[in-house]
C-alpha cells in the first residue's frame, strides 16, 4: 500500500556516533543492494544469497575507503521488510561519513529521524504501542532538529542560504512571469541576463557544497595522521600535545599498539589524531610510506604531520619521503624532532628544505610554534574570515540536489528549452533548497511577481 511513495532508498549510521571498534551503516529500500554493489569490491551482491556476510572493500573510483563486511537482508525477511544492507566498517566517524556520502552520491538518501523504524511499522512489523514510540521520536527529533539546524548553521550559512532562496525565487518568478503573464505589458528579462543569474546562484551553491568537507572538518575535527619512522617520537609528540599519558611510550620501536584517537584544540579548531598505531606494521621501513595500505590510512586524513628524527635521518631519505607526501595531495607539515640532543648548526644539512619546523617533543620546545603552523596549514584564517560553511549532511545533500537541478536549467537554456519545461527544473531546485529554508510555494512566486510588476487589465 505504501510502496508507491516508499520508493527511495535510505541510508544512515546504525551505531552510535563517535569512535568505536566498528561502525555500521544501514541501507533500506528497493535500491539498497544495487547501490551498495556499485561501490563494493568483492562478491557481486546483486546475485548474492541473503542473510550472509561478504568481505570486501568500499571503493570510490580508484580510491579504496575501507575494508568492510557487508551483510545482505533481502525483504521481506529484514528489519524494515524491504531490502536491507548493513555495512560494517572500521569505527572511525570519518570513514563512516565518507562511505555514507559515497552511497548518497550513488542514489541513496539520508534517512529522516525514525525513518527505518517507521518503514518497519508501515510494512507491518510493529504494533501500535511501538508505533507510538516512533511517533514520539519523530516529533521530538523534529523539534530538536530545528534547534540543531540553528546551531549547525555556522557563520553566515543561514543568511547566505536565505539570500540564495530570494535570488532563486526571483529567477523562478521571472520565468513564471513569461508563462502566466505573457500577454501583459511588462518587460521580460532576456535569456542572457537570466542565464547570468543562474550561473551566479550556482556559483554560490558550488562554494557551499565544496565547503562541506571543510565544514565537516571544523565540526568534527581535522583528521590528522602523524607519520614517521618508528622511534621518530610520534607518541612522545602526541603525549606532549595532549598533555596526558595516553599513549604508551618506550624506547622500543613499535610499542604504540593501542588504538589512539585523541583531540587537540587550537584556537577553537579541533585536530583529531587518528589511528597512528595502524601505521606501525607498514612504517617499519620508511619505504613503506608508498605502500597501498599506508596510503589508504593517510587518504582519510585532512592533514599529515610528517615527523622525522633529525639525528638519524639523511637528506636523501627526506627527499624521497617528501615526494611521496606531495603525491598524496593532502596538506602536510614537516617536523624535525629531537633537536634536544643536537647541535643547531648541524641542521644545515636540511637547509634546502622549506618550511621544516624543529621541535623537541620531549623538552616541549617549539610546540607552540608548531600549533600555529597546524592552523596555517589547514588555511584556518581564510575559513574563519569570509566563508560560510556547510557542515550538515542533510543540508549538503539538498544543496547538491539543488545544484543538479540548476545544471539542468543551464543545459535547458542553452538548448533553448521552452519556459514551462525550464520551470520544471527550477521547481526541483526550489524544492530541494526549500528542504533547508522551508517550502517555497506558488504564493511566494506570485507575491514576488505582483510586487515587482504591474500586472492586470
Amino acid at each position: 500500500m505504501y510502496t508507491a511513495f516508499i520508493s527511495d532508498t535510505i541510508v544512515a549510521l546504525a551505531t552510535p556516533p563517535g569512535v568505536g571498534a566498528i561502525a555500521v551503516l544501514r541501507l533500506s529500500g528497493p535500491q539498497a543492494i544495487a547501490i551498495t554493489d556499485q561501490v563494493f569490491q568483492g562478491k557481486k551482491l546483486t546475485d548474492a544469497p541473503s542473510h550472509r556476510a561478504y568481505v570486501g572493500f568500499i571503493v570510490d573510483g580508484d580510491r579504496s575507503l575501507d575494508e568492510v563486511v557487508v551483510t545482505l537482508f533481502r525483504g521481506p525477511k529484514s528489519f524494515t521488510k524491504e531490502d536491507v544492507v548493513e555495512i560494517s566498517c572500521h569505527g572511525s566517524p570519518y570513514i563512516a561519513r565518507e562511505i555514507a556520502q559515497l552511497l548518497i552520491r550513488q542514489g541513496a538518501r539520508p534517512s529522516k529521524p525514525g525513518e527505518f523504524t517507521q518503514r518497519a511499522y508501515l510494512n507491518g512489523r510493529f504494533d501500535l504501542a511501538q508505533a507510538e514510540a516512533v511517533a514520539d521520536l519523530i516529533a521530538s527529533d523534529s523539534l530538536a532538529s530545528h534547534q540543531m539546524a540553528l546551531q549547525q548553521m555556522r557563520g553566515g550559512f543561514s543568511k547566505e542560504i536565505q539570500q540564495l532562496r530570494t535570488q532563486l525565487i526571483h529567477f523562478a518568478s521571472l520565468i513564471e512571469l513569461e508563462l502566466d503573464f505573457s500577454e501583459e505589458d511588462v518587460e521580460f528579462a532576456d535569456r542572457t541576463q537570466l542565464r547570468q543569474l543562474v550561473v551566479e546562484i550556482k556559483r554560490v551553491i558550488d562554494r557551499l557544497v565544496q565547503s562541506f568537507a571543510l565544514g565537516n572538518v571544523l565540526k568534527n575535527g581535522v583528521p590528522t595522521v602523524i607519520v614517521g619512522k618508528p622511534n621518530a617520537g610520534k607518541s612522545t609528540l602526541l603525549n606532549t600535545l595532549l598533555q596526558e599519558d595516553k599513549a604508551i611510550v618506550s624506547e622500543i620501536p613499535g610499542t604504540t599498539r593501542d588504538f589512539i584517537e585523541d583531540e587537540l584544540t587550537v584556537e577553537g579548531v579541533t585536530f583529531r589524531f587518528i589511528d597512528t598505531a595502524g601505521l606501525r606494521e607498514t612504517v617499519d621501513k620508511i619505504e613503506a610510506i608508498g605502500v597501498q595500505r599506508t596510503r589508504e590510512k593517510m587518504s582519510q586524513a585532512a592533514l599529515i604531520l610528517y615527523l622525522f628524527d633529525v639525528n638519524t635521518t639523511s637528506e636523501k631519505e627526506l627527499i624521497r619521503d617528501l615526494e611521496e607526501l606531495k603525491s598524496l595531495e593532502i596538506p602536510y607539515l614537516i617536523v624535525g624532532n629531537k633537536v634536544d640532543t643536537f647541535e643547531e648548526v648541524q641542521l644545515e644539512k636540511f637547509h634546502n628544505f622549506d618550511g621544516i619546523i624543529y621541535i623537541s617533543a620531549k623538552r616541549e620546545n617549539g610546540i607552540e610554534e608548531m600549533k600555529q603552523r597546524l592552523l596555517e596549514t589547514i588555511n584556518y584564517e581564510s575559513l574563519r574570515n569570509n566563508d560560510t560553511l556547510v557542515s550538515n549532511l542533510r543540508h549538503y545533500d539538498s544543496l547538491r540536489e539543488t545544484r543538479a537541478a540548476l545544471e539542468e536549467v543551464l543545459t535547458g537554456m542553452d538548448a533553448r528549452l521552452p519556459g514551462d519545461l525550464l520551470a520544471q527544473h527550477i521547481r526541483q531546485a526550489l524544492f530541494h533548497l526549500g528542504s533547508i529554508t522551508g517550502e517555497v510555494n506558488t504564493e511566494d512566486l506570485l507575491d514576488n511577481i505582483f510586487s515587482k510588476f504591474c500586472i492586470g487589465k
Partner: protein
Amino acid sequence: MFPEYDVIVVGAGHAGCEAAAAAATMGSRVLLCTMNMQTIAQMSCNPAMGGVAKGQIVREIDALGGLSGIITDKSMIQFRMLNRSKGPAMWSPRAQSDRMLFAWEWRLALERIPNLDIWQEMVSGLVIKDGRIAGVRTGLGIEIPGKAVVLTNGTFLNGIIHIGQKQFGGGRTGEKAATGITEQLIELGFESGRMKTGTPPRVDGRSLDYSKMEEQAGDDNPEKFSFDPQTKPLTQQRSCFITYTNTAVHETLKEGFDRSPMFTGRIKGLGPRYCPSVEDKINRFADKERHQIFVEPEGWDTVEIYVNGFSTSLPEDVQYKALTKIPGFENVRMYRPGYAIEYDFFPPTQLQLTLETKLVQNLFFAGQINGTTGYEEAACQGLMAGINAHQNVHGKEAVILKRSEAYIGVLIDDLVNKGTEEPYRMFTSRAEYRILLRQDNADIRLTGIGHQLGLASDDRLHRMQQKVKGAQELVEKLKEIRVAPDIANPVLEANDSAAIRERSGLYQLLKRPTVTLEHFAAAVPEIKSTVAAYEQEMVEQALIEVKYRDYIDKEEQMAKKMIALENLSLNPNFNYDSIPTLSIEAREKLKRMKPQTLGQASRISGVNPSDISILMIYLGR
C-alpha cells in the same frame, strides 16, 4: 405550484448555468432561480473567455460535458491561441465574445434541456431541516422544496456599487442586490467576508480614432474551444485595438483621488492584485509612464466598446476627462461609467472537495461567493457543484478531480485547503503538474469521467479514443524512421541544431527543442506521407508525446506519489487532540479544516512533513 426538485440552483451566471445544465442532463429535476431572465449568463466584466490557464479550464469543462466551450465557440468574434511560442503546456485558447450572443446562446441551451425549469425571482432564504437543506424561500415568500441547493450568487449578496463618492446597493450596475442569505448563513454558523472587484467604462466605438492604435487581429488559422465537431472555427473575425495611457491621463486621474472610494477608505473589501484598477496601477507603480489599454468590441454588430485595462471607481467626470487624454479617445462618448463593487463571500475552507458545505448537508457553493474571480473559475465550480449535487441526491459517489488530473482539481483543492485572501484566479504556476494539464489533452484526461456521468456523449468518447489510438500509431511509426546525415543535416543546420554523423532515429532528433516535424516533412517525402495519413489533432498529440515524454514521465511519477497520499482517507471527525505528538499548530489546523485525505492534510499550511509522518503511523497500515 412547485414539485420537490432534486436540485435548485440559485443564480444564473456562469456557475449557475453550468450547475443547472449538468444536474439536469444527468437526470435530476432542476430549478434555476434567477432575479432576471434577461440577464442569464451575462458577462459582467470583459467580453472574453479563456486566456492563460483559464483557456485550459474551458477545455476541461468541455471535455467533461459542460457547455461553456460550445457556447463560447458559438458566440466568439475572435480567437487566439496564446503562448504559441512556448511549450504545449502553455498554449492557451482565448476568445473575444459577442456579449449578447453569449447570453442568448446560454439561454437557448438551457431551454433545450427537458427537466430544467426556470423561475424568475430573488431567493432570500434557505429552508433547512435537521441540518440538511430542504429548499429555498423567495422574496414573494414562496417555499420551493428541493433536495439539494447550489448557491451561485456571484457579486449580488449585499453588493454595494461605488462610483466616486456615490454608493448604492446592486449586484451589477442597473441590477438589484440580493439580501437575506448572508445573514441566515451567518446565523447558521458560517463565516463571511467582503471582497471587491471593478469594471472599466464602456464607450461608443464610433467616437474612437483607430488609426492612432495598434490593431490586434485574431489568429490566421483560428481554432476553437469545444472538442465536439458540432461547432466550427471562425471564418471571419473582429480585431481588438491597443492604445496606452500617458502622464496626462495619470495626472487627470490623480485629480480625482480625493474622491476615490478606494483611497478614502470607503471600500473595505480586498481586491485582486492582478486585476487592479487604473488608479491603483498609477498609485503603486508611479514610475511607469504608461499602461496598456485594450479596446475590445462587445460583439459582431454593436458599436459598444469595452475599455479593458481602465477599471476604475473614480467619479464619472474624472473617468471621462481622463479617457479623452488617451490617444484615439480624444472625442470619446461614454456609454456607462466604470465602477467598483463590494460583495459578500464565504471563505471556501468551509467547503468539502465536492463544494458541499461542511455545515449543511446538500448545500453547495460555487463561483464568486467562494472567493474566486473569472468566468472560467466560476463555470467549472458550477459544473462540479451541479454534478455532485446530483450524485448526492441520487446516492451516488462524489466526483472529485485530482490536482494531477485537471486545473479544476487544483482550483477546488486550493480553495478548500488553503482558502483565499483575495479573489482567486487560476495561474498555470498554481499547478504542480502543469505539463500534464494541457489544453490539447483535456479530452484525454476527462472525457472518460464525463461520459461515465452521462454528460459527455458516446460520440465524444469515441472521438477521444480514436485520437489516442491515432497518436500512438504515429509515434510508433516515427520511432521506426531513420534519416541519413545528408538529409537530416540541412534541416538541423537550418534550425540551429548540431549535425549528425551517422543515420539517426527521427524520434530522437525530434526531441531537440528547435527541431519540428514540419521541417522534416518538408524535406523528406516519406515522412510527409506518413504524417499526412493522420488528422491534425493526432499529429499534434504524437509530437507532444515525442518531444516531452521525459518531462511528462517525471510529473507522472510525482503525481503517483501524491495520489498514494490522496488514497489514504482521514476521518473528518477524528480527534486530533488524542495525538499529543502532533504540533499544536497542526492539531489546530487539522481540527478546523477536517481534511478528508492525508494528501489534503499535507497541503494545509502549518502541517509539516513530520506531522504527516505521525498521522501515517496512526492511520495504521
